[in-house]
C-alpha cells in the first residue's frame, strides 16, 4: 500500500522591512514619524496597514514604494535593497516591481480609460492584456470615455487597472477607498480582492478604516511610529461581507 505525502506550501518572503526610522522637520519642529519598523510580507499576501492619522502608515508605504527614503534601516524586495539604489535604479525598481493606487485617482485627463491603463502597460515587459484587465474591472464598455465622464468609482477602477496591468510584484494602495462612498468602496475592495485571487499580486493597503482589516491576510497596526500589532488574520472575511 502506498501513501501520499502532501507537502505543505512554503511561504516565500517577498518584502522585508528592517528597522525603518524616519523623521520630518528639524530642531523644535522635528517629528519622528517612524521609530523602528520591522515587518516581513509574504508573496501573495494582502496586508493592511492600519492606524490613525499621523501614525506613519502612508510614510511607510511611500518608503516601500521608493518615493521617500528612510533615515535608517532598509527595505528589500526579493533581497534587493532600495536604500543602496540611485534615483535611476529606484525608477527601474518601481517600474519593474510596483503598482501604485492613490486615494486621488490622478488619471491623465485627456487620455481615455483604455489609454490610461495602457500608460501602465507600457512600463512593463510582461504586462497583462489590457482588454482583459478592462473586462475584469468592468470597464470594457467605458474604455473610450475620458476621466471626466466617469464616476469616482469608475475612475478609481481605472487607476487600479493602470497599476495592475503592469503585473507588479507588489501593489501599493494608499487609502484607495478614501474618496468613495460606502457602496463604491466595497466594489473597489471586492475588485482588489478578485485581482489578488486572479493575478496573485502581493498587496499592501493603507487605510484608517478598521473594518477593512477583516479582509486582509495580515494586519499591521501602527501607532505613534511603531508597530503595535502584526498578526495573521485567521478570520478572513470576504470584501463583499465587510460592513462599517
Amino acid at each position, binding site marked *: 500500500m502506498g501513501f501520499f505525502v502532501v507537502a505543505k506550501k512554503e511561504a516565500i518572503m517577498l518584502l522585508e522591512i528592517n528597522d525603518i526610522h524616519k523623521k520630518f522637520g528639524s530642531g523644535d519642529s522635528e517629528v519622528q514619524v517612524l521609530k523602528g519598523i520591522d515587518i516581513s510580507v509574504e508573496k501573495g499576501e494582502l496586508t493592511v496597514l492600519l492606524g490613525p492619522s499621523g501614525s506613519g502608515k502612508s510614510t511607510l508605504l*511611500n518608503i516601500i*514604494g521608493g*518615493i*521617500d527614503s528612510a533615515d535608517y534601516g532598509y527595505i528589500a524586495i526579493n533581497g534587493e535593497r532600495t536604500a543602496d539604489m540611485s*534615483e*535611476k535604479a529606484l*525608477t*527601474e525598481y*518601481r*517600474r*519593474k516591481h*510596483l*503598482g*501604485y493606487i*492613490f*486615494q*486621488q485617482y*490622478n*488619471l*491623465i*485627463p*485627456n*487620455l481615455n480609460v483604455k*489609454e490610461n491603463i*495602457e*500608460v*501602465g*502597460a*507600457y*512600463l512593463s515587459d510582461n504586462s497583462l492584456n489590457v482588454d482583459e484587465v478592462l473586462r475584469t474591472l468592468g470597464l470594457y464598455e467605458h474604455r473610450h470615455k475620458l476621466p471626466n465622464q466617469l464616476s469616482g468609482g469608475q475612475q478609481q477602477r481605472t487607476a487600479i487597472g*493602470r*497599476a495592475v496591468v*503592469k503585473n507588479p510584484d507588489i501593489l501599493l494602495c494608499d487609502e484607495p477607498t478614501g*474618496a468613495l462612498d460606502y457602496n463604491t468602496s466595497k466594489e473597489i475592495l471586492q475588485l482588489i480582492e478578485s485581482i489578488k485571487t486572479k493575478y496573485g499580486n502581493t498587496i499592501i493597503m493603507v487605510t484608517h478604516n478598521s473594518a477593512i482589516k477583516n479582509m486582509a491576510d495580515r494586519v499591521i497596526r501602527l501607532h505613534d511610529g511603531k508597530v503595535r500589532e502584526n498578526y495573521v488574520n485567521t478570520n478572513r472575511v470576504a470584501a463583499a461581507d465587510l460592513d462599517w
Partner: protein
Amino acid sequence: MNNPLNRRFFRELKDDIGKYLVIFIFLAGMIAIVSGFLVAGESMTAAYDESYEKYNVEDGNFVLANEASDEDIDSFETASQYNTVIYPNFYQQGEVSSMSSRATLRLYSDRTSSEAMNKVCLIEGNMPENEDEICLDRNFAINNEVTIGDSITFLGRDFTICGYVAMPDYCAPFEKPNETMFDARIFGTGIVTQDAFDSFDDTYIHYQYSWRYETTPKNDAKAKTMGDDYLEKLIPIVYTGGNSLVSFTPGYMNQAISFPDGDITKDQAMIITFMYLCIVIMAFVFAITANSTILKESRVIGTLRASGYSKVELILHYLALPMFVVLLAGIVGNICGYTVVKDFAANMYYRSYSLPTYVTLWNTNAFIKTTIIPLVAFFVIELVSLIWKFRFSPLDFLRQNITSSKRKKAIRLNSKIGIQSRFRLRVILQNLPNYAMIFIGVFFANVILVFGCVLSPMLSHYADTITSSLLCEHQYVLKNQVELANSNEGSDEEVDAERFGIQSLIIESGDWKEPVITYGIVPNSRYIDIDNFGTDDEIPIVSVSNALAEKFNLGVGDVFTLDEEFENRSYEFEVGQVIDFPGSIAIFMEEDAFNKVFDLEEGSFSGYFSNTNLVDEGILDESNVATEISRDDYLKISRQLEISIGDLMQLFSLFGILVFMLIVYLLSKIVIEKNATSISMIKILGYRNGEINKIYVAATSIIVVLSIVITVPLASMLMSYLVEALFMSFNGWIPYYAPPLLLPEMCGIGIVSYAVIAFFMTLRIKKASLSAALKINE
C-alpha cells in the same frame, strides 16, 4: 508598444489651441520678418557685390577743374605703384524742371563702351538712342512722379524719359560723398546719348575721372593705403599740368557706392538683434507656460513617476509639443519670409536705393539664424527649465509641493480693508511671480513699441527744429572768392548776403570719423550770434553747434581736435560756447580767428549766407558756386530716414502690440487657471461672475495697468540711449525726442489692448466649472 503618452500630443494642442496659436503666430511672424529681411538683404548684397565686376565699378574718382590732356591721363594711370586705369566720367549738373519739386540732376553720357566704368543697369524701358531721350534713376523718377514717356527740361532742353536705370556709382544718390544723408527726391542721376551730352556747353560740365586699380584692394584698410598713395602721387601731376584738384574720392569713402551695403548690413544687425530679443521674450513665455503646465499636472506627474516613468521620459514628453510648435513656426515663417516678406523688404530698399536687380538666393545663413538657432535656443531653455522643474521627487509632485517659494505663513492684511479688497490683494500676493513676469514682459513689449512709435515724431520734430534754427535759406560755397554785384560789406541795405569762411575738417571718435564744418563768421553777423573769443589764445576758443556738443559729449571748456581730411594736419580747439544749431556738426569762430587758424589772408572768405536766392536774382553767377546748401539739405537725413525705415517702424509698432498682448494673455490665463478651483468654489458659494471678475480679473488689471504706466517711461528712457547709440554711426545728429503725448498714447494703446484680453478672461471665468472644486479634495 508605443508610449501612450504620445497620444496626448494633438489633444493637448487642441485643448490649449488658443495658447499655442498665439505662440505660433508670434514665432512664425518673427521668423518671417527676420528671414525675409535677411534673404532680401543678402540676395541684394550678393547682386550688389557681383555688380563690382559685372558693371566695372570704379575704385574711386577725382574731379579736376579742367579737362586733362591725354598725356596727363597716361601719367595719372602710372602715377601710383598700384597701376590704375582711368576712365573719363564727365557729367553735367543743373536744375531739372517739370518735376513735382525743385531737383538737381547729374547727367552722364551713356556708358556703353567696353572699357566704360560704372556701367548702368537698365531696370525698365530702353536706353536712350536719340538726342532728346533720357534715362533717369528709377527712384529719382518715382520720387518726382515722372514716368517713362514724360518730358522733363534740363538746362533749357527737353528730354523724353525712355527708361529707368540703376547706376552702380549712385546706388545711394549722394550729391557729395561726405554728405550727412541723401535725398532721392531732390538729387538724381540720368543718362543721355554721347551726342546729347556733347551738345551742352561747358558751363555746367564737371571733369570727373573714375579709376580702377589693376588689383582690387582686399579691404578698406588696403584701399585707404592705396588711395592715400595715389592722391599723393596725383596732386603734383595735376598741378604741374596747370590743373587743380576739386575733389578726390576713393571708393571706400564714396557713400554713393558703399552706403547701401553698409545700411543693409546695419539693418540686418538690427533685425537679428530684434530677433534675439524676441527669442528671449518667447523663451521667457515658454518657461512660464511650462511651469504652469507642470504645476497643473503635478499629481499626474507624481503618479507617473511613482509608477516607474523616468524623468527623461517625462521631460521629453513635455518638451515635444512646444518644440513641435517652434519647428512648425520655423517652417511656415521661412516660407512667408522667402515669399511675402522678402518682397516687402526688397521694396523697402529699392525705394531708398538704386540697386541692380537681384535673384533670390537660398540663404543658409538666414535659415540658421532664423530657424536653427531659435530652435536650439528654445530647446535648451525649455530643457533646462524642465530639468529644473523635475528636480523634485515623485512625492513632492504628488503633494503638489513643487514651488520654490518657502513662505509658509500668509502675510497679515489689515482687517479694516474690505474682504473683497483683501481677497484681491491675496490673489496678487499669491501670484507675485507671475505678475513679476507680466511686468518684465510688458517692459519688453513697450521697448519694441516705443521704438516703432517714436521715430516718426522724432524725425518730424528734428525737421521742425532744423527749420526754426536755420542760419539762412541759402549758403553759397564759392569756387573762388568773388564779390557780389552791388554788394556792400556787412550792410543789408543793398543786398541780402554776408560772407563767411568755410573749411571741412574731421573729428574722430574711436573708429568713427565725421566731417565737421568749420565756419568763419564776420563780426556782428546778422545770421548767427556767436561770442567773439578773440585771436590771442594758444588754443582757439570756438562756438560749437549743439549737434556737435551732444554727439561728442563736449561742454564749455573742453578741448577737442579736428583733422584735415586729405592732409596730415590737426587743430585743437576749446569750446567757448554751445549754440543752438541742430542741423549740422559744426564749429564757428570769428573771421579773423578763422583766417589765422587756417593761415589765410585777412579778409579771405569762401562763401555767402543769404535768405535770398542770389543766383536766381542774378547777384551771384552760378558758375562761381561750388555748392549751395539750402534748407532741403539739412532735412535730407530726416526725410530719407522716414522713407528708408518708416515702414519698418510701423512693423515694429505692430509687433510691440502683439508681444504685449501675447505676454499678458498667456500670463493672465495662467493666473486664472491656477485659481480655477478657488473660482469654482466661490461660484458654488454664490458669488456672481461680476463679483468674481472684480477679484481675479481686477487683480490682473491692476498689475497690468501699473506695469504699463511704469514701463512706458522706462522704455522711453532705454530707447533714448539706444537711439542715440544708433545715430552715432550716422553723419549728423538727431537727438532723441518723444512728444509729450506719445507716452500717454502708448499707455492708452496698452490699456485698450489689455481690455480685449480682460474680456476673454471674464469669459473664461464665466465658463469655469462648478464641479472643479467638488472633485478635488484639498
